[in-house]
């Protein structure tokens, strides 16, 4: 004959099998029922077995088992209730029940108590109290149960307020502890906001306050509207289903839906991907919605029951409002009557404005009405007055997103700005994004506004911005593209926002700024993390995309707010630092005298585009901004052609002749001391250097342009250039050096000068005009070899010359060198450099 435990095993196995083979919810009640049968049959058997010295007792199901909501890994919560003391045989009887369950590895949480023990237990332990609140008599001596129940009810009635307050506080603390944050990525199905505990608390409160017996009675007695109840139970079903799927999957009792299990659970539940979203994203969105609905219903319920125990709030009491059609009830803003809404749908906007203005929360009843009547309200495209009112809320810096969040939860925003429907509750499946896109958008806006009081650089940037309206709109809409495109949400978002904003009749200039920000809202964060922020090319690249310092400020604020609103993992102090370096460096570039003209970057961008089409982006990206700015497109083309002939040669050059000068375009690898070596060869060969422009492409190619005097003997010019070429080959391959010879030439020249005055030898160092370079200006007499010697000194000081201009004024010259240190940064200790250079100058001319 089958024993009760055998029957339980078979039934249990069947239920679990059925469950894993379908996507349907777990049969909570049937599962509980299996155990009911087990206890009842075992009780009957034990009656026979222990009939001689049987002590009467009751078996009572508690907690989830009592509610007939047993999940797959739930403990069996059982109370063995005795009248007075228990005997040894009573203990033996209990083992009859418990051992077989343990043997098949079911967790049994059983307590054995006498009536008086039970009475004390519920008073001293809130968990035992709530467990008994859900108690259900299973079998045994029923008068005992009735007795315990009566004592319990007496206790409840005498301490109602205290108990309610305790339950409420517990749940409030739980909400705080399992607050929105981490819980969003890896929801806690039981303790999280909108988790099962919220449902339990509703149930417990209604049992205590209204003596309800089941959750259905919440609807029957009007605590929930039909629609709310339907939504509520559907949400509960999903959460229970997820919980059981999760626990089957990991075979332990866990309520946290960890990241790594989310995909599997989504599959088990039968979620299917669509064009825009993966199965797991759709699953998480609907789980999130369900938990949100439980939470909403919980909060509404609290409001509805007007907890007497909770009237201890210290808040300025507002008793009335002026706005017609609105009133204050129990400290909350409400509609005077639902009838006025169809007559004047604009009141749906008024209530939010009033709530913000008077700092008074909108009541639960009003929220329900907003949801119900929202379809009557024109959208933002249909009524510009309403749009203006909305914008007022949007740009109000005192609006810390509370109003906008309630505009979201009442479906106001998704209706008013229809594009928002696409991102409503949309979850992004990764470890960074805590919030669904719609909430994240509003959160971003809130973070942007919070910069107002920031004491660091963010605050300064924020408060400098004049056009905050653009910034706020961009924050609200920056992720709108996520509802329309799976991959390129920034570009798609910019396109959609453009259409939206033009339909809102916003000025084109502002539309352009907002769409620019949306399109580039990832630029800074991507550049900071994927490129070298200490590399000039990164700075130039970002600058040429951003175009001016206003745009940069906007983007910086939006980027930080976006990262912060995404979640703590997305914004670490480490990342903050990278972004700050990038921001400061790019910003500095915009104040560089060469780049401060607003059109500069548009010009560079145009050139870059044109050249990229011919030579490919890779090569053009290697060129510096200054090079692109200062070199004509035609010349860049010539440079590239020359570069293409370099191959394995030591260097290649191109000499262009004019009447009075020669222009040498010189291309080689970037040898150490290249400039010092090449200029020494030129000077040694009697070639006067009039001007030198030095460019380094990042692939370590030097592209220098020298304007020089023609060789003294123009008849054999080509032969002369051949000889110079040979000399350069020799000097670059280390076979010869010319610098010592230059010093001899120079000293002869100096001997020919009359009246050398030290006053005319000057060194000026400028660290402000350029964001990338220290500019050294050297004033001296124009002698052959001077340039070569100066260049050599700079080389010996480990300075990198990036650019140089030589200007002769009569017999005097000014040589300007744009230099960096070996790390590519500006020189910090300019005084010591100045002294070194001045000494060198005085040496040369002594």
């Amino acid at each position, binding site marked *: 004959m089958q024993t009760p435990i055998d029957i339980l095993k078979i039934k249990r196995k069947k239920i679990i099998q059925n469950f894993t083979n379908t996507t349907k919810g777990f049969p909570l009640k049937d599962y509980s029922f299996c155990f009911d049968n087990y206890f009842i049959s075992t009780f009957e058997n034990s009656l026979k077995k222990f009939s001689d010295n049987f002590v009467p007792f009751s078996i009572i199901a508690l907690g989830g088992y009592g509610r007939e909501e047993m999940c797959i890994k739930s403990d069996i919560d059982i109370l063995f209730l005795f009248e007075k003391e228990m005997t040894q045989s009573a203990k033996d009887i209990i083992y009859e029940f418990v051992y077989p369950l343990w043997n098949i590895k079911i967790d049994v949480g059983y307590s054995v108590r006498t009536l008086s023990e039970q009475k004390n237990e519920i008073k001293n332990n809130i968990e035992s109290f709530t467990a008994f609140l859900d108690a259900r008599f299973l079998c045994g001596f029923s008068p005992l149960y009735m007795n315990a129940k009566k004592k319990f009810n007496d206790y409840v009635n005498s301490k109602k307020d205290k108990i309610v307050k305790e339950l409420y506080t517990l749940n409030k603390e739980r909400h705080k502890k399992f607050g929105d944050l981490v819980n969003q990525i890896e929801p806690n199905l039981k303790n999280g906001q909108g988790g099962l505990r919220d449902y339990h608390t509703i149930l417990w409160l209604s049992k205590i306050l209204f003596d309800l017996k089941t959750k259905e009675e919440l609807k029957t007695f009007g605590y929930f509207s039909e629609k709310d109840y339907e939504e509520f139970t559907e949400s509960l079903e999903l959460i229970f289903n997820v919980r059981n799927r999760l626990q089957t999957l990991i075979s332990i009792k866990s309520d946290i839906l960890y990241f790594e299990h989310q995909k599997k659970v989504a599959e088990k539940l039968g979620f299917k991907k669509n064009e825009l979203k993966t199965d797991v994203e759709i699953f998480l969105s609907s789980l999130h919605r369900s938990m949100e609905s439980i939470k909403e219903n919980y909060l509404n319920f609290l409001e509805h029951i007007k907890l007497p125990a909770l009237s201890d709030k210290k808040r300025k009491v507002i008793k009335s409002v002026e706005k017609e059609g609105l009133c204050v009830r129990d400290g909350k803003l409400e509609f005077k009557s639902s009838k006025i809404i169809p007559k004047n749908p604009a009141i749906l906007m008024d209530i939010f404005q009033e709530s913000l203005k008077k700092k008074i929360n909108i009541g639960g009843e009003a929220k329900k009405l907003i949801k119900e009547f929202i379809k009557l309200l024109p959208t933002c495209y249909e009524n510009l007055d309403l749009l203006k009112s909305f914008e007022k809320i949007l740009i109000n810096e005192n609006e810390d997103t509370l109003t906008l969040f309630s505009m979201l939860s009442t479906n106001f925003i998704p209706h008013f700005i229809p594009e928002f429907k696409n991102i409503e509750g949309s979850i992004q499946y990764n470890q960074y994004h805590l919030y669904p896109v719609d909430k994240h958008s509003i959160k971003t806006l809130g973070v942007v506004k919070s910069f107002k009081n920031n004491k660091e*650089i963010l605050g*300064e*940037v924020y408060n*400098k911005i004049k056009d905050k309206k653009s910034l706020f709109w961009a924050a609200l809409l920056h992720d709108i593209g996520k509802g329309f495109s799976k991959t390129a949400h920034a570009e798609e978002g910019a396109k959609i926002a453009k259409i939206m904003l033009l339909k809102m009749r916003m000025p084109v200039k502002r539309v352009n700024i907002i769409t620019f920000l949306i399109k580039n809202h990832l630029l800074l964060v991507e550049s900071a*993390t*994927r*490129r*070298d922020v*200490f*590399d000039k090319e990164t700075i130039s690249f970002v600058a040429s995309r951003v175009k001016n310092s206003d745009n940069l400020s906007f983007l910086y604020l939006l980027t930080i707010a976006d990262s912060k609103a995404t979640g703590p993992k997305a914004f*670490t102090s*480490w*990342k903050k*630092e*990278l972004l*700050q*370096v990038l921001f*400061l*460096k790019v*910003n*500095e570039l915009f104040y560089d005298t060469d780049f401060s003209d607003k059109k500069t970057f548009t010009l560079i961008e145009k050139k870059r585009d044109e050249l990229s089409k011919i030579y490919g982006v890779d090569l053009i990206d290697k060129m510096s901004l200054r090079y692109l700015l200062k070199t004509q497109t035609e010349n860049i083309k010539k440079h590239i052609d020359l570069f293409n002939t370099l191959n394995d040669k030591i260097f290649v050059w191109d000499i262009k002749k004019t009447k009075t000068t020669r222009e040498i375009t010189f291309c080689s690898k970037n040898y150490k001391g290249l400039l010092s070596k090449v200029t020494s060869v030129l000077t040694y060969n009697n070639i006067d250097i009039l001007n030198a422009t030095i460019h380094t492409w990042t692939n*370590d190619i030097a592209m220098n342009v020298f304007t020089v005097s023609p060789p003294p003997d123009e008849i054999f010019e080509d032969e002369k250039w051949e000889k110079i070429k040979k000399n350069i080959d020799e000097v670059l391959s280390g076979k010869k050096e010319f610098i010592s010879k230059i010093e001899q030439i120079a000293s002869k020249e100096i001997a020919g000068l009359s009246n050398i005055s030290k006053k005319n030898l000057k060194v000026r160092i400028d660290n402000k005009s350029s964001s990338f370079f220290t500019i050294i200006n050297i004033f001296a007499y124009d002698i052959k070899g001077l340039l070569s010697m100066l260049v050599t000194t700079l080389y010996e000081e480990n300075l990198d010359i990036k650019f140089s201009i030589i200007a002769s004024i009569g017999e005097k010259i000014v040589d300007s060198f744009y230099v960096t240190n*070996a*790390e*590519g*940064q500006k020189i*910090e200790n300019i005084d010591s450099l100045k002294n070194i250079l001045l000494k060198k100058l005085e040496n040369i001319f002594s």
Partner: protein
Amino acid sequence: MKKIEAIIKPFKFDEVKDALAEIGIQGMTVTEVKGYGRQKGHKEVYRDAEYIIDLIPKIKIEVVTSAKATDKIVKVIQKAAYSGKIGDGKIFISPIEEAIRIRTGEKNSNAL
């Protein structure tokens, strides 16, 4: 067994990770760190106020491996993290006495 610690530029991380995956290195510990070496901190100016950035953000990768594989891994990291500029970072190698897998208690090479 050896521990290889590499401090690299943040933007080089993906390259290094991919290069290590290519030679079959599955496990590593990655930390976002800040520090300075020869690439010292620097000053930035915003609206006449100076902001000193003395600690530069870097990525630290730690791999524990058999002594035999060390050279190869170091070469791969060095190649992938190279940009030729100052601040490319450093690699440190140190001996490991013992390794234990917490779940199973397996030791040393079995625990890697």
